[in-house]
Every structure is written in structure tokens, then in C-alpha cells.
């Protein structure tokens, strides 16, 4: 399982990557914004994307929209990590077809639960 962690904060990336490592997922790439993520996605294959919402250049929401429009990537599960728990934001995330969201700060356990929920819901957990 290969992850792409997208966040403009190196500290946040580190926190998510450490949590993933504690689950046993060591194959992780990182990107600092949506544009960098798209560049990574163009050259490597990933199985799961965990992205921040608010980033310069290209936000997590814009990244999601771009991925969902691309036939070669639209199948990728996306978990949005954000401090924004605003209701209108959730509506936007739903519209963009984010698979789920997790609100900062979260414990590794909550992250794990959300990841499980996404994979179960898109029928991948049984594999």
C-alpha cells in the first residue's frame, strides 16, 4: 500500500507519516501542495492519498477535483485532513467526492479508523 501525504506543513507531514509508519505502512511519498502532488501522481503509482485542505498554489480541494477528473486517477481513495470542521466545507468536500475527512488534531487511532472506513466503504478492506 503506497501513500501520498500532501500538506504544506512539514511538521504535519511528519506527524501523518509517523502515524502511518506505526500502522506498518512504510511506503510513503510527500508533497507540499496540490501541484506537487499532481506531479508525483504523474510519475508514480499510489494507492491512497491523505491530503491537507488549505495549501498555497493548489488546495486539497482543487487537488481532489483534478484527480476525480482524470480517468487514470479517479479511482484513488482520498482522505482529507483539515482543521476545518465547518459545515459548508464538508459540503464542498462531498461535492468534490472526497472519500472521507478527518479533523485536526487527531490521534493516530482516529486516522486509522477513518482510513479503515474509507477502504471498507469502497470495498477494499476485504482484499
Amino acid at each position, binding site marked *: *500500500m*503506497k501513500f501520498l501525504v500532501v500538506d*504544506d*506543513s*512539514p*511538521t*504535519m507531514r*511528519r*506527524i501523518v507519516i*509517523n*502515524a502511518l509508519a*506505526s*500502522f*506498518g*505502512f512504510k511506503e510513503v511519498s510527500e508533497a507540499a501542495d496540490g501541484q506537487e502532488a499532481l506531479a508525483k501522481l504523474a510519475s508514480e*503509482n499510489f*494507492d*491512497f492519498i491523505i491530503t491537507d485542505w*488549505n*495549501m*498555497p498554489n493548489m488546495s486539497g480541494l482543487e487537488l481532489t477535483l483534478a484527480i476525480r477528473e482524470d*480517468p*487514470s486517477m*479517479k*479511482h484513488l481513495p482520498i482522505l482529507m485532513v483539515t*482543521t476545518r*470542521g*465547518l*459545515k*459548508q466545507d*464538508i*459540503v464542498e468536500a*462531498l*461535492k468534490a*467526492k*472526497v*472519500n*472521507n*475527512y478527518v479533523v*485536526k*488534531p487527531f*490521534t*493516530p*487511532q482516529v486516522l*486509522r*479508523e477513518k*482510513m*479503515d*472506513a*474509507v*477502504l471498507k*466503504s*469502497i*470495498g*477494499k*478492506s476485504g*482484499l
Partner: protein
Amino acid sequence: MGAPLFNDPEMQEIFEGYLIETRELLDNLSQDLMIIEKQPDDLELINGIFRNFHTIKGTSSFMGFSVIAGITHHAEDILNKLRRNELKINLPIIDCLLQVHDIIEGSVESLRTGEIESGDFSEIINKIEELKNPGAAPDIELLVNEDTTGNKKDSSKKSKKDTQKSALDDVLTNQELVSGQDDFSEEELALIQAAFEEVNQQFVQDNAQVAFIQDSGQQVSQPEKLSSEPVIEKKPEIKQVEHSKTTNAPIAKAGAAAAKPASETIRIDVNRVETLMDLSGELVLGRNRLAQITDLIQLEPDNKDRIRELSETTAQIDFVTSEIQSAVMRMRMVPIGKLYQKAPRIVRDLAKEFNKKINLVVKGEETEIDRGIIEELNDPLVHMIRNSCDHGVESPEERVKIGKPEIGTITLDADQEGNNIVLRISDDGRGMDPEKLKAKAVEKGIITQEQASTMTSREAFQLIFLPGFSTAVKVSSVSGRGVGMDVVRTNIQNLKGMIEIDSTLGTGSIFIIKLPLTLAIIQGLLVRVKNETYALPLSSVLEVVAIDDESIYSINQQEVIRIRKEVLPLLRLDLALKVKDPKTDLKDRNVVVVGLGTHKIGIVVDDLLGQQEIVIKSLGEYLGSISGIAGSTILGDGRVIMIIDVTQLIQLVFSKTIFKM
């Protein structure tokens, strides 16, 4: 090494990264908050400011720094309103945001030194709340988005899709849910999760079709089984300084005395590291070659080819070594812009304090300088900016009256000149009156009337650097400490630099600071005194003259030398350094003229041995500091020699003579 704040090395590492990142975000913020004052409609900028606070809030909450996270949350709130155009930016808001910036800065600084964050910030939080809610503060410009809210309520989408009711539709159309900002209730959360479930079902269907079309061309790797067994949660562990676990909060009440700053981490451009990697590779090649040649030479000691190869390899290693030296030096270099970053804020606050209008111009920010020097320059710079704002730039009324533009200008400039960095702080203010300065110095008993009468304007300007001259400095919130210009000069001299002033009455003043590029490597002039070799920093050497008896005489028991029209006090290095059996006559000896600002002396040495690049090493703890000696260095032949502290020698001479420093 200081005691780390976190027990877990992984957390400690994240914490150190957090400190660097937050420092950068704060720097961005202070810059952007300055610009937004001039470009209040720049939405891009407001978004950037929001994002910086937002990131600080996010990472701080993860680290368990609830004070920072809490106050940042309030800043974020107000910025959210600005972003959505529900509020218009104004000065009180910018002031508030700057205050929040300062609070975060202070808290992060205490965390860095191992203290816990604390403080009562209810006042600023109340202020933000007031500014945020227009009712409480009627004088705030406000654009309420009434149309949007009103329309939203009218346009009910429910009628469109009431046939197939779904959680997704519900979430998308539920007005209460959509417009509210409060925490979600259990039912709402369930509804939202159900909505995501629907999105995911649609997602699966869409991708099933895609998979069918795409065939199995792309290998999708098998996800590891994600089971729901509990994961051991790694909570940030904090070193408990006191015996008991007093609180559940991640930050324990650490005894301030036990806490020490976390080890310092710096960021280095990857390219610079790679250059160094390449160079060290070349060094290894050279070393291997050298070992080979040594073996071969032992077999055939007289082979000329081998000896030629040896000297070639030595030359190559010599080249690589100096390249490595400069590469390592460059790693310590940072753009001076780092130092200038705080200037806009300082000028803004001071202009406000003194009721002046001042524009700040910054040039040459990209000029690089040693990290250690930058840190030491901060206080002198703040003080000089303060000086220019306070004493330099006139009040707007005064400026208009004398035909100057209402807004004064302070310019910070940096440039590299040879092995030096030159900083200039200039203003277009009232300038300095050398006669007034002299009169004040005489009045304070710092100089005599006679000295004043022979003093040039340039020398008179230097008077402001004398201790006790500028006592009128008010301790303010900006400079923080009540330092005078004498401290500024001492700081700069400690950095092996010098400061000079030029000023034109009515037109403005300029402070010129000259500093070495780095403190670690200097060009040295090697001199002989009896059997000993010493190094003098070439940066302070003005000229070297051979002694001719006629030019030497005595004034008030002080030996002096006349060089052209100037009379300089003389210092015999052998006497000053207490070398055994000093020579009594001056025959065949040399005088090295060294200068510091406008103070010059002649140092008598036996011989000149040429110049060389030297790496300064401190004398080590057991030697402590020796008067007149700045440090030591090792010469190519392995000899350890002392480096002369020119500043100290000059001070020594001037403290004894009628000229006081």
C-alpha cells in the same frame, strides 16, 4: 545539549521541526501583515495570512501547545471573516493580529528554551471578539453579506429532489447544517458519514466501469489488511521534571531552572550539501592517490615522475581543501534579509510611537552573511533604526514646513565588498550638527574644549558612540532594552567590525557598518616579535611603514609617530605582550598602522612575514582570555601562533592617552 522537552526522540525531532517551521511562518506573517496595511484589498495576501495562522494552529494543537493553538484560533476566526468579505480589514484588526503574532512568538521562544507556555491573553481575545462582532464596535467598516444569506434561505433545493431522499442530498441542502458553524451533533455526524458513504458508493460504481474499460493494464497493489484491532496510540511524551503527573495536558510543569534550550537546528540548501558531498569525494580520491604515491616513493625514492605526481596531488588536495572550507562557510551563510525582516514592524511601531510618518526602503536583502554575525547584529540594528526614527526623521509638520516630503524615508542597504559586508542605515531626516555634539561632549566632560576645537566633523559624529553620551534614550517597548549607541559600537567591534557615521545637517545621516564575511576565517598579516610569530587581522591593517627615527617623538610620555600629517600613538608589541628582554631601540623595526573607526595606532613589530588565510581558534578554556590576544591559529608547518586583538590594543592605548574612547 539541553534537556529535550520530549522524552520520545521521535517527538523531540518533530518538535524541533515544528520550531523551525513556526519560526518561518511567523516571519512570513510579520512581513505579510506589514504589506496588508498598504494593500488591504489583496485577497491572495489575506488567504496567505490565514494559511500561516491556520498551519500554526494545526501543528500546535498536535504538539499539545494549547495556548498557542487557542489564541491562533481567534486570529483564524477573524481572518475567516475577512476572507469571506464579511469584515473589512482595518488598522485595529492589523494591530490585533500583530499582537497575536507577538504572543505566539513569545510562547514559541519559551518552548524553545524548554519552558512551558503560559500567560493570560483574555484581553487580546476580548479585543478580537469585539472586532469580529460589528455590534460591539460600531466604528468598524463592515460588509455584511446579507444578500447571500438571504438568498440561501429562499432558494430551497428540497423541491428539486424530494423524490429520492438521501443523506447526501440532506447534507447538501439542509440549511441549518450547511450554514451553521458549531460542533456537530451526533445525528449530524451520522448524517455526514452517511453522505460520505453515498459518495463512496457512487465512487465504487464509477470506478468499476473505469476498471472494466482500462482492463488490467495497471497493477493495483494489494492493500495490507486494515483490521480494526486497536492501535497503540503514541501520545507525545513530555519529560516530567517534577515527580508526579500533575496534569493530563501534554506539557508538564517543568521547573524553569532545569530547562535548557533545545539543540539548534539549521536548514541548509540541498545544493550546498551536495556540493560538499562532491568535494569530499574528491578529497577521498586525493587521499587515496597520496597513499599510493607514498608507497611507490618508498620503493623508488629517486623517481622524478613520482615526485612530480606527489606535488600534483598535493596541489589538488590543497585546492579541494579550500573549496571545502568555503563550502562549509557558505553553509553558515544566510541572506541578510533574515535580519531585515523585522525592520518594517519596528519602523511601523516607532512611527506610531513618535507620531511620525516613515517609509522603509530595504535593499540588498539577498546579501549573505555568517549566521553567527546576523544573530549578534539584531540588537544594534534595532537600536539604530530606533535612533533614526526618534532623532533622525522629523515630524510630518516640521518636514512640510521646511519643504521636505511629509513622509520620511529610512533605508537599509547591504552589500558585499571584498571580504566584508557593508550595511548602511540612512535617513533623510534632520542630520547631526557637529558643533552641537562637541558642545554636549564638553559639557558632559567627555572631551576638553581644546580637543573639541581641533576635532573634525567626522570625529564629532563618532562622539555619540562614547559611553555616557547618549543618556536620553528612553526604554521603550520596541528596543526592549535601554541600550545606547556605545553598546551598538561595542557589539559591532566584538564582531570584528567597525561603524562610522556621515551626516549632513538638514539632509540626513548615514551609519555605515563594515563587518567581516565570517568570524571563523580571516586574512592575517604575520609579524615577528623577537622569536615569536603573531598574526594581525588584515582587515584592521591600514598601512605598514618602516621606522625612521625622526618621525618618532613623545607627547606626555606617550610615544607617537608622525606619518605624513597625522600623529598616531605608538604601541610596542613586545612591551604590550610582555615578551622577555624587549628591544629598547626602534632601529630597523616596522610600524603596522591599524585602525578602528577613526581611532588609529601604530604597532611596532620586528619584522613582517607576509600574509596568510588563518582559521581562528579560541584559546581554549584553560588559557582563558589573554589581554591583547583574540585567539590562536595553526600555521601550515604545525606551529601554533597567537592572533592579536587589535580592538583591545587600540582601547588600551586610548585609555592611557588624553583621547578617551
